[in-house]
């Protein structure tokens, strides 16, 4: 029994605890006094906030389901013009964060916006504002979030379609089903676990979104938590609301976990071959092509064009930007965070693997909820916790304050990202680990390998691809990350995301265009790097 308590065990115990800091902080209110915020909220807008949250969630789930599954269906089973292009082009949508999509949408459709300019250019002066559709903030939020997140559903659904050992459409035909009937009766149910997994990721990101909805002035549960805690110093209300949010998320986790188990059940272990695609002709081919083009255009080209158009139209904002330091800062954060996350995800996974402790398993599962906590709440929780810890140590043991080490420093930023993205990295490495059979470890031990040597000489090389993939996924997330960076950064420290935000905050979206464009370019570059892993046909 005692042999279990070793280096691996301890390290995999500590990491989830660190990652659970924000949740612990939210639930244990050490600090502040309460106000009347909850009473006010209950009497006025609480129901509206909750219904906004649910409306956005349902709208986004519906749209991402429709976009993701339809496009995955087309590119997996059919051959039509451009299919090999769309296969990877559709994942570029990951490069556009929801808030930048929101900037583009607003810029295009607002009174005297880009749409107005285009109409004026084409047809001369006129009163076009009346005819340009005006987005309600709710609809705008739903579209922005959906276009930036449908990629999850697309990637996972497509992978699930590919794992089928034979063409499901052929099966349907043999059973005498129409194409439509095969789709609803065979294809859709078979991909269900993957779709649900994709949708639950979408749901978590949607519930924790703050940037997009606040740009559209839509108040959701996250807004209420933010107001309660940050504007009214009312921690107990913030706790109750966070509890509600975590409750939503917990339900999603349970659904996701459940569907994962089913997914494992469905996967053929080996020996599948690629599906021969059915060639589409005529109208059907046009339909598939138009759908995928529309999706690619709306999710990626539209925001890129809007930002590019502004960069060219307002060249003077271009000069104000210190490209060297923006690139340096962004990449520094990406590099340090990816390395830390990957190393510790490895340790945790390996610890879990060799100790087989239930406690560790639960703890790891609990700690990954950090992903679902809105970044802005997490950042404040982080600051609050560090300052509490430092003050406690100072007053109890007379230590010097270590706040400056963690608040307003690169180390603090990396640690906060660590908490935020540990789930992504941990699960990424875990899915690689699940493919290494336990018998491989046993053989290594028989050959006299130590645990450490098994880890370095067998697991690490075996998981090279997972490491690469996870590293790049983290990179994409960190490039896009805004609220944590904004609050925790050192003096005179800007990334592309904070620079774009700071222009947007002074109502100069035109100037925000160039840093936004750089952000999208970097993220796209990383995506293209790993596209063959994300879209791996094997």
């Amino acid at each position, binding site marked *: 029994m005692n042999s279990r308590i070793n280096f691996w065990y301890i390290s995999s115990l500590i990491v989830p605890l660190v990652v659970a800091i924000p949740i612990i902080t939210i639930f244990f209110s050490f600090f502040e006094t309460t106000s009347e915020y909850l009473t*006010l909220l209950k*009497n*006025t*807008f609480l129901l509206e906030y909750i219904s906004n949250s649910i409306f956005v969630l349902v709208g986004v789930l519906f749209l991402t389901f429709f976009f993701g599954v339809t496009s995955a269906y087309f590119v997996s089973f059919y051959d039509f013009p451009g299919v090999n292009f769309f296969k990877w082009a559709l994942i570029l949508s990951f490069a556009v964060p929801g808030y930048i999509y929101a900037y583009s949408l607003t810029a295009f459709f*607002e*009174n*005297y*916006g880009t749409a*107005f*300019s285009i109409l*004026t250019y084409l047809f001369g002066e006129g*009163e076009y*504002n*009346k005819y340009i559709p005006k987005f*309600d*903030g709710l609809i705008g939020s739903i579209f922005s979030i959906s276009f930036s997140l449908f990629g999850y559903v697309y990637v996972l659904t497509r992978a699930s379609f590919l794992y089928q050992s034979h063409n499901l459409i052929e099966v349907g035909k043999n059973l005498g089903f129409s194409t439509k009937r095969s789709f609803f009766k065979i294809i859709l149910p078979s991909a269900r676990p993957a779709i649900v997994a994709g949708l639950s990721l979408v749901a978590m990101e949607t519930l924790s979104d703050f940037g997009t909805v606040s740009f*559209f*002035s839509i*108040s959701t549960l996250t807004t209420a938590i933010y*107001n309660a805690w*940050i*504007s009214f110093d009312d921690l107990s209300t913030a706790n109750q609301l966070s509890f509600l949010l975590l409750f939503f998320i917990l339900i999603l986790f349970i659904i996701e976990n459940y569907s994962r188990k089913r997914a494992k059940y469905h996967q053929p272990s080996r020996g599948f071959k690629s599906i021969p695609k059915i060639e589409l002709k005529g109208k059907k081919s046009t339909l598939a092509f138009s759908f995928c083009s529309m999706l690619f255009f709306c999710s990626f080209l539209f925001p890129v064009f809007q930002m590019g158009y502004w960069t060219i*139209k*307002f060249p003077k904002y271009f000069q*104000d930007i210190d490209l060297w330091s923006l690139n*340096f*800062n962004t990449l*520094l954060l990406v590099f340090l965070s990816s390395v830390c996350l990957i190393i510790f995800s490895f340790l945790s996974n390996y610890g879990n693997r060799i100790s087989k402790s239930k406690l560790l398993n639960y703890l790891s599962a609990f700690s990954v909820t950090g992903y679902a906590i809105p970044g*802005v709440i997490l*950042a*404040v929780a982080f*600051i*609050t916790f*560090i*300052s509490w810890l*430092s*003050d406690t140590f100072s007053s109890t043991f007379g230590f010097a*304050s270590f*706040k*400056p*080490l963690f*608040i*307003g*420093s*690169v180390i603090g930023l990396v640690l906060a990202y660590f908490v935020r993205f540990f789930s992504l990295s941990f699960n990424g490495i875990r899915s690689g680990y699940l493919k290494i059979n336990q018998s491989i470890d046993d053989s290594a031990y028989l050959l006299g390998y130590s645990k450490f040597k098994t880890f370095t000489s067998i697991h690490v090389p075996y998981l090279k691809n997972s490491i690469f993939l996870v590293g790049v996924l983290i990179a994409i997330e960190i490039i896009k990350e805004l*609220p944590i960076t*904004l*609050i*925790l950064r*050192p*003096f*005179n*420290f800007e990334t592309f995301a904070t620079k774009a935000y*700071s*222009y947007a*905050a*002074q*109502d*100069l979206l*035109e100037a925000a265009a160039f840093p936004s464009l750089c952000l999208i370019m970097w993220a796209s570059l990383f995506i293209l790097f790993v596209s063959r892993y994300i879209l791996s046909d094997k």
Partner: protein
Amino acid sequence: MRKLFLNILGFLFIFTSVTAQEVNIFSARHYDSDVQLYEKFTAKTGIKVNVVSGKDKALQKRIKAEGKDCKGDLYITADAGRLGAFQSQGMFQKGASSAGVKKIVPANFRTAYWTGIAKRARVIYYNPKTVNPSWNMTYEDLADPKYKGKIVIRQSNNVYNQSLVASLIKNNGAKKTETWAKGLVSNFARKAKGNDRAQILAVAAGEADWAVANTYYIALMLSGKKGPEQQAAAKKVRPFFPNQDGRGTHMNISGGGILKHSPNKDNAIKLLEFLLTKEAQEHIVNNTFEYPMIDGVEPNKLIAQFGLGFKQDLKTKVSSYGKLQAKALKIMTESGWN
């Protein structure tokens, strides 16, 4: 490679680099022109200016949590209410209104803890093709049923609106302000949404006849910084300075105060005083289109063209906004102002 390594090392230990000749600013104002101004200050005095900008409340949270380890010297933000609220939490120390500052900034726009740097007015905009305000129109008039379906304004969570309503509470009392807010909400042309500029654009596009927004937004559009379309749109709209027959038009400030644990207090005072020099004020008014805080500086001509002789509300101290903002928000929310 060596440079890169040193750079990385420098960033990791950025928190240790405290030299005597610097001043650290936390700013909820994001203007690039502010940064240019800080550079001018450095060139003049040799004092380096370091900045972290961000959202107002979140920055305040960080400053409070850092406590006496906070390296910040100055906190700069727009809206007097925010400054007042932060002051009431004991986060400023006295000193912002130095003898030099007192001489040039009117008493209404400063306290012992913070001082205004620039002024803005929150005014009524209208479409001159469809309506024409009488010379003595007031904020109070906006609740009149004759404006039903004609007014646009942004949401109640906006701090400028909270300060405006705070000033109404101060002058008319809570009860009357409640009735006023209900009347105003029933006159909305659409659900409150968008920023101040979006309200002005809505009037230009004919969605409404009246809007409430700050003065500098129309100048920003007229300047062409938002492109020729918005420049043309802005020309279709006029600002109107209300309450000329009474207390005057609602004024607000951008301002700053010295933080409680400021390690470079003297430099912070020097910077505040610099921001109030003629040179700096001219830079501010020509970039942000706010009104100058000191005498002897003209606003930018895009703002000046709307008249300089209007009566400003100097009766309502801007320091009263902070105390009444929470009440203002409560009244607005309860009247259905989303």
